[in-house]
């Protein structure tokens, strides 16, 4: 079977700096894959290249959505990438602070709604039904993620952990088949991290999602991941199961022993 996401020989140069150098990563359907590496290794750049925020210098990004044929994502704008079913969260939380929690999730529904300007102004029944449905769907997602009690709060007033979860809820609203999580556990306390662990597993099992995450919390990575990819200085240095990675001498070297106790 085709991998759900197939990145081949991805290279991204910023002037003279090679942020990514010939990285190839394939992700199978239903996997939880992790992308790890020291700070500045190019992990977020990798996400940005897949989601269209950067246009990679070289390489190919292909997706095979469930039940659909293989297509290339290269050169697509971020919004089209999202439309094709890849959603992401951000390392530094990027919620819409001028909106309520519900509205934040409704923004995620945007690309699945069809009513245009004229319909918005005239509000025919079709538009009203669609809006109602969007509110309903968004609320349902909030319930799944466990944020329904904040529904009408302003997004900025949420506790930190809830803000991270709201980012996931918002990404879920775009109906993705592949979810990219950029350091979802950053800044969370152990209890919140545990809840996140449960949530990610739940998302894979009940929402049929494939998940690729960047994470520094090795405990979380090792317990969740089916497959781990390691990058360092823009180059991929290893891939394999958590056990393989733990034993890999290159990986230990890349981390200079800092994380080796954990890993």
């Amino acid at each position: 079977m085709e991998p759900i996401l197939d990145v081949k020989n991805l290279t991204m140069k910023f002037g003279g700096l090679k942020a990514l150098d010939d990285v190839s990563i394939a992700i199978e359907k239903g996997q939880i894959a992790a992308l790890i590496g020291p700070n500045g290794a190019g992990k977020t750049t990798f996400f940005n290249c897949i989601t269209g925020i950067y246009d990679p210098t070289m390489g190919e990004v292909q997706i095979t959505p469930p039940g659909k044929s293989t297509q290339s994502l290269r050169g697509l704008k971020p919004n089209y990438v999202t439309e094709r079913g890849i959603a992401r969260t951000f390392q530094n939380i990027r919620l819409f602070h001028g909106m309520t929690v519900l509205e934040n999730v409704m923004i995620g529904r945007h690309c699945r709604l069809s009513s245009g300007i004229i319909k918005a102004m005239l509000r025919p029944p079709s538009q009203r039904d669609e809006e109602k449905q969007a509110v309903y769907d968004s609320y349902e997602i909030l319930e799944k993620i466990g944020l329904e009690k904040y529904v009408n709060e302003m997004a900025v007033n949420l506790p930190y952990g809830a803000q991270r979860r709201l980012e996931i809820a918002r990404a879920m609203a775009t109906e993705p088949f592949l979810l990219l999580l950029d350091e979802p556990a950053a800044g969370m306390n152990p209890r919140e991290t545990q809840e996140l662990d449960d949530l990610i597993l739940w998302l894979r099992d009940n929402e049929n999602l494939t998940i690729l995450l960047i994470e520094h919390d090795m405990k979380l990575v090792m317990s969740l991941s089916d497959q781990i990819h390691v990058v360092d200085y823009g180059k991929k240095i290893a891939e394999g199961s958590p056990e393989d990675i733990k034993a890999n001498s290159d990986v230990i070297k890349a981390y200079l022993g800092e994380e080796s106790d954990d890993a």
Partner: protein
Amino acid sequence: MPIKQQLKQSLIIAFWFMILTFPIMVIKVNTIQNIIVFRWFNLLWVGILTFFASLVWNYFLRRTEDSKKKDFEDDTPLIHRLLQNDRFRKPFLGLLAAFFIAYPFIFPMYHTSIMISALVYVMLGLGLNIVVGLAGLLDLGYVAFYAVGAYAYALLNLHFGLSFWMVLPLSALLGTLFGVLLGYPVLRLRGDYLAIVTLGFGEIIRIVLENWDEFSNGPRGISDIPAPTFFGHQFNQDNTMIYIYFIVIALVLMTIFFVNRLENSKIGRAWIALRDDEIACQAMGIDKFKTKLTAFALGATWAAMGGVIFAAKTSYINPMSFTIWESITILCVVVIGGMGSAIGVIAGALVLILLPEYLRAVAEYRMLVFGALQVIVMVFKPDGLIKSVRKVYTFQTSQEPQQEKIVHGTHT
């Protein structure tokens, strides 16, 4: 801050002001006798007044800061709370409607005329609010679209004899078209750069109108623009003013109606998302460029319609009516009224346009009072007179029966 420190601070401020105003308040050159007069008493006055003004200023500043700390719940503007309360809403809206219907019959023509200008600014403000307040695109050339509307009516009438009622929808389309045309090249920019380029575009339109004699009659402008007719019937001068007044009222209501609907729709949410975080907005599947363009074009639509009214009311237009200062005034209406808040923008337009008219009594200090007022609003109410609309939206969703249904539906 302890009282002693405050007094000290006010003293320093007073002293500073005395130095600052020394050249203009104290020194006076008597050109007839060729001597310099030193008016030391003025210095004393400046000192005393600044001292007390600074004390009062500090007092209010502290009060605003204290109230900010206290509670988040209670800062919904009073008018929103009134409008949300069913008991007050109907009488309140009824009174408001009665006032605006009776207005031209109670007050002299002059006041009706001023009110028409103010209401045109309400339209312009609501239009610009889409661009600046909701989509967060700082547009300093908004007046260009106002000019497009005004000249569309003047020229189409002059050359083709089209009536007000034919031009009004045409100008709306023309405004949209110009919005797209001007927006297309400039919307790749953001923030300050966008502001500078739109400023340039605004000026280009004005300069073209001023210099393209054969097309626009140049600086002489176009006169004898006919007033709107009522099914072919032409009113006398006074009644025409009343008639235009009601047309503007209708248009303002229409604007509020549509803008409110847009705001609470898919496209309105996309605008706000774009304003809050461009990258996250794109990552949520929103076409950045298209969203910006619709905001720009829709804003222009209302500016053009405002322009038609303006031309019909004054019956004479020339490029001098469409300078950068108009753009800035409209921007002030939006910012001081409250960015993204429709009610705020309406209040802002009424205050900002009516106030200078009624300050004619103190004509010399008009601009000074105007400026001081803006500073005061910005310091004490940085969100504008009546702040953002999102509070209203939140409240609406939670009050709408559909929301209730959903909450119950999912629990049973």
